[in-house]
């Protein structure tokens, strides 16, 4: 049996139905149950049949003659025959809801507890129940606060794991980007080394011949031998043309090393810990960085057109903005399933906002899907290919910057995402983060200022 209920129970002895009004009045006056507002009346089987409150009794007795008139009459004539009755077998929650739903104000009565078998057990003080409710609400509040905290933490975790997933994808691509130059640079160095060995042998042989020719004592067959040696070496190794090739090997190696260092530099830029929470950032620089890092996704599929109007620096976290840009570019590239892929990247200012627009001529998004794409885990990609977190995280990041991310799309034509960031500090003019703000603006709004790229253009 639930102990919190037992704690509420006061086993005050009940009245019997045939007790007279006078006797009941005396019981009230005798006291011993001061916390209680009323006394219960039970039948022969000890089942509660009603409740007589102090308050009702007073009202009766206030009438000058009622004690004389009614004093002898049994109490069941005056009692409340429909008191609140709860069973000790019930759960605390049930009891609370039974009591609070039947409560009458002002509170002049208690409620009756019965045992499992329905026999009278005692009385309960309504105020105690209210206290219990309050206590429970407090607990629930705490739980809510806790849950809230957990949601926040797991949101941070989501951001992190999306970052890791993006990173994993990126590492795969970057590995390819770096391994290719590493392949030929390593091979060229190895070949150069081998060639150097051959050059060494050849120069030694030439030297030998030269010594021989200068020597007074050298026999003709000795010279002949040395010439044969040179001829044999030359057989395998054409010094003149091979040395020309060597120059080319070194040129390529230098190019490869430059490429590797560019990739490493942009990785460093991409993941750099922001100096301040918000720097004054050149977004165009960010776009270039994201393009370098995301190059492997893009280069084989799309031609990239940049139309950059100068935009002022904006206060933002560059690594987060990079994450957003990479997400949106990757999505665009993934949406293209033909070999005429185009990506148009533009920058411009609109009012107080610096804007980046990324436009693809990919599949477009069916109208029914548009409302969902910012939801976490919404993806149309194959299992293992997309987490569906990209845009929800991007959305979060841009909103946290006081900016906005919107799109226009037409099935079979393409999609344009527009990211806008406030030019001045976002703290003063944060856009509301309500579900309606999540809804992307209808395609027409963006489509009107410039049509989406035609696929075959």
């Amino acid at each position: 049996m639930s102990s919190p209920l037992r704690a509420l129970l006061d086993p005050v002895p009940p009245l019997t139905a045939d007790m007279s009004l006078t006797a009941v009045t005396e019981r009230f006056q005798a006291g011993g149950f001061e916390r209680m507002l009323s006394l219960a009346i039970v039948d022969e089987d000890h089942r509660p049949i009603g409740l007589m409150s102090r308050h009702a009794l007073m009202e009766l007795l206030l009438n000058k003659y009622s004690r004389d008139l009614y004093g002898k009459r049994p109490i069941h004539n005056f009692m409340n025959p429909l008191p609140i009755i709860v069973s000790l077998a019930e759960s605390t929650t049930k009891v609370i809801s039974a009591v609070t739903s039947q409560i009458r104000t002002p509170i002049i009565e208690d409620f009756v507890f019965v045992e499992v078998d329905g026999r009278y057990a005692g009385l309960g003080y309504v105020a105690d129940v209210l206290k219990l409710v309050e206590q429970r609400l407090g607990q629930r509040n705490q739980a809510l606060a806790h849950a809230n905290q957990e949601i926040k933490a797991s949101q941070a975790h989501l951001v992190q794991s999306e970052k890791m997933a993006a990173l994993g994808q990126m590492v795969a691509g970057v590995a390819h980007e770096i391994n290719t130059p590493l392949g030929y640079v390593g091979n060229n160095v190895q070949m150069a080394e081998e060639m150097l060995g051959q050059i060494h042998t050849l120069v030694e042989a030439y030297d030998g011949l030269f010594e021989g020719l200068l020597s007074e004592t050298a026999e003709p067959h000795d010279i002949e031998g040395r010439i044969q040696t040179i001829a044999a070496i030359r057989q395998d190794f054409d010094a003149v043309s091979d040395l020309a090739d060597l120059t080319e090997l070194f040129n390529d190696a230098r190019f490869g090393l430059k490429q590797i260092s560019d990739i490493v530099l942009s990785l460093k830029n991409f993941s750099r810990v922001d100096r301040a929470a918000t720097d004054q950032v050149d977004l165009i620089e960010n776009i270039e960085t994201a393009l370098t890092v995301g190059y492997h996704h893009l280069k084989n599929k799309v031609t990239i057109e940049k139309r950059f109007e100068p935009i002022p620096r904006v206060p933002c976290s560059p690594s987060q903005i990079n994450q957003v840009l990479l997400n949106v570019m990757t999505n665009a590239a993934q949406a293209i399933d033909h070999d005429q892929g185009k990506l148009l990247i533009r920058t411009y200012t609109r009012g107080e906002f610096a804007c980046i627009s990324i436009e693809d001529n990919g599949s477009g998004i069916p109208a029914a899907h548009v409302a969902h794409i910012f939801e976490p885990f919404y993806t149309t990609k194959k299992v293992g290919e997309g987490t569906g977190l990209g845009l929800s995280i991007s959305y979060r990041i841009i909103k946290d910057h006081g900016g906005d991310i919107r799109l226009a799309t037409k099935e079979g034509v393409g999609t344009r995402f527009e990211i806008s960031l406030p030019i001045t500090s976002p703290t003063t003019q944060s856009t509301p983060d309500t579900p309606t703000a999540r809804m992307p603006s209808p395609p027409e709004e963006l489509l009107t200022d410039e049509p989406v790229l035609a696929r075959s253009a």
Partner: protein
Amino acid sequence: MIDHNLKPTLLLVDDETRITRSLKMLFRNEFNVLTTDDGHEAIRLVQAQPVAVVISDQRMPMMPGVEVLRGIREASPHTMRLLLTGYADLAAVIGSVNEGEIFRFLQKPWDTEQIRADVRAAAHVAELNFTAAARRAQSGQNPVMAEVAEVPEACPGILLLDRDPAAYELVKRATPPNNPLHWARNLDEALELLSTQNIGVLVTDVQDGQASHVGAIKALKQSHPQLVTIVLTQLRDYELLVELINQGQVFRFHPKPGHVGTFVKNVQSALDYHHVLQTQPELQKRHSVAQSVKPLLTGLSDRVMGYFRRFGVSGN
């Protein structure tokens, strides 16, 4: 048929010209090297002339490497195919074995000595393949019959190493009526059967409970170079597969349970391949690249001495 006095042809397919340039320089002494950055072009090239070996990149704009290699396999089945990639997913590895029937899976950056050895080995096998094909073509309309007559014991056994009864059922269905099927539940039984029976094709899982067969598959390929291995497994492990391709020369990778029809075909081509290895063992010894033997310059010293004397550089 390849003219053995000519260098064999090596085709390089990569969208990064610095890769093809670098590799071309590495191989031009031993091979006649062709290069392209376009998979379609690569397929045309192997149709136009006998190409012994092709090395293709995986990630390319027009056509991924696995598709290029599949196309080449169809156009010129005797060309040995190698995939060279900076990064590949599991699907590419499996595809490269089963569809591309690759000889080696190479990773960028590569080891110069290793790639030399691999390409030479590939050229060697290619020569073997081209020769066998030419022979078949010479011996009449029905090459299979002709060869059976040539080698009477041409029905080698198939050995299954896997305790899974479902695998046995699958292999049984794929085994031609004349080829005996042996079933080994563990490695010891397999080794016993290999030493007493004429086994041509090994079908095996890579794992048996905790025990791994990877080492055994590699060792067996070394001790029984004519054994053709089909790996039949549920396991999907990139590194393991690459290892099995390169060191175990796994011929096919068949996922469990997989498609029966495909498996039947796999077993048949494994038997065919074994037959080539079996019937022309002398080819295995021969190296594909012959050193050219031009006569060295003769009577030079007099000419040279005369030349120098005219300038009064040396003595009288």
